[in-house]
């Protein structure tokens, strides 16, 4: 029985991969599907939904997503795993097995099960950069920053104790707002400078080392009698 185990797992894995591919799904299961009993490979009448009559046995080195061969041969065309539902079945089956398998399975601990489910490999999109319209656009973000500042800071007076808290709140709020309108795959750095409006000079300068085609920044300022606020938001593409 133990000799049949590797063949069964490879075969099952290959079947599963084939079925998921036929769906057009980008996901592949890298870990082998756990099995409890390998000797009963023939009678597989899994026409029903998730509850499988046959628990499968785990491959000794395979569960946990480590050593499963990926390019395995398909040698049993009559196996029910060829069927379209079998992919979902085997997926749900592993969940079912989680519930039912504790008592009858030996050799593997429970915490390895999540590792099997996490081993999904995504297909490459062959994309090297964002589209023209998915780039960080400074103008709309600047308008958004300005509008937010104007509305939030109306009537606010500078106070030393509240100033730091106000800065933090503003930074978080602006970051949240920019995140909503920002295109995907962009990291956001939001900085807020609040100062008391007095008879002194202030100079704020920013310089960046990045990809100028993809990354950009937006600035907004607000000033009233008692304070000034400067908000800078940088958008950096996540390569």
């Amino acid at each position, binding site marked *: 029985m133990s000799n049949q185990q590797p063949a069964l797992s490879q075969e099952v894995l290959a079947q599963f991969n084939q079925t998921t591919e036929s769906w057009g799904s980008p996901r592949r299961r890298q870990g082998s599907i756990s099995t409890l009993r390998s000797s009963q490979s023939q009678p597989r009448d899994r026409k029903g939904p998730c509850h499988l009559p046959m628990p499968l046995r785990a491959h000794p080195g395979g569960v946990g997503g480590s050593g499963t061969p990926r390019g395995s041969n398909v040698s049993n065309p009559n196996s029910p795993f060829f069927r379209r539902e079998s992919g979902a079945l085997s997926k749900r089956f592993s969940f079912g097995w989680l519930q039912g398998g504790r008592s009858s399975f030996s050799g593997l601990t429970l915490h390895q099960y999540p590792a099997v489910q996490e081993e999904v490999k*995504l297909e*490459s999109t062959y994309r090297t950069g964002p589209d023209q319209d998915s780039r960080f656009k400074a103008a709309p973000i600047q308008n958004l920053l300005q509008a937010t500042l104007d509305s939030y800071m109306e009537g606010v007076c*500078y106070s*030393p104790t509240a*100033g*730091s808290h*106000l*800065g*933090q709140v*503003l*930074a*978080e709020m*602006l*970051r949240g707002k920019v*995140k909503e309108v920002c295109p995907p795959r962009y*990291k*956001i*750095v*939001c*900085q*807020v*400078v*609040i*100062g*008391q*409006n*007095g*008879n*002194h*000079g*202030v*100079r*704020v*300068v*920013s*310089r*960046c*080392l*990045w*990809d100028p085609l993809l*990354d950009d920044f937006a600035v907004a300022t607000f000033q009233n009698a008692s304070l000034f606020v400067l908000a*800078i938001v*940088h958008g*950096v593409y*996540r*390569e």
Partner: protein
Amino acid sequence: MEEYSGDEVSFNSDEASVSVKECIESIIGGVDYNQNKVNQWTASIVEHSLTQLVKQGRPFKFIVNCAIMQKSGAGLHTANSCYWDTATDGSCTVRWENRTMYCVVSVFAVAVTL
């Protein structure tokens, strides 16, 4: 092939803070606030800091921000909020002052996956 995570280093903020402090000292250490020169100072500070950071040779994009304010009794607050990967990206802020001015330099480093 996608998961080239063997060499993932995170941003070392202590090292960056030391080199930024040296840059500030070299440019405005021991001088008084001068409105005519402050443009030049801020530009030099960010340029030098950026150059020093790049010399470390790490795969990061950098954002360096410098604020110089004259000391007049008025208050100044800076805050920042970042949406990034906390495992690889980081920031450091250096506060420096002398008798006549404050200088606050913030460095943000965003990892580039090679």
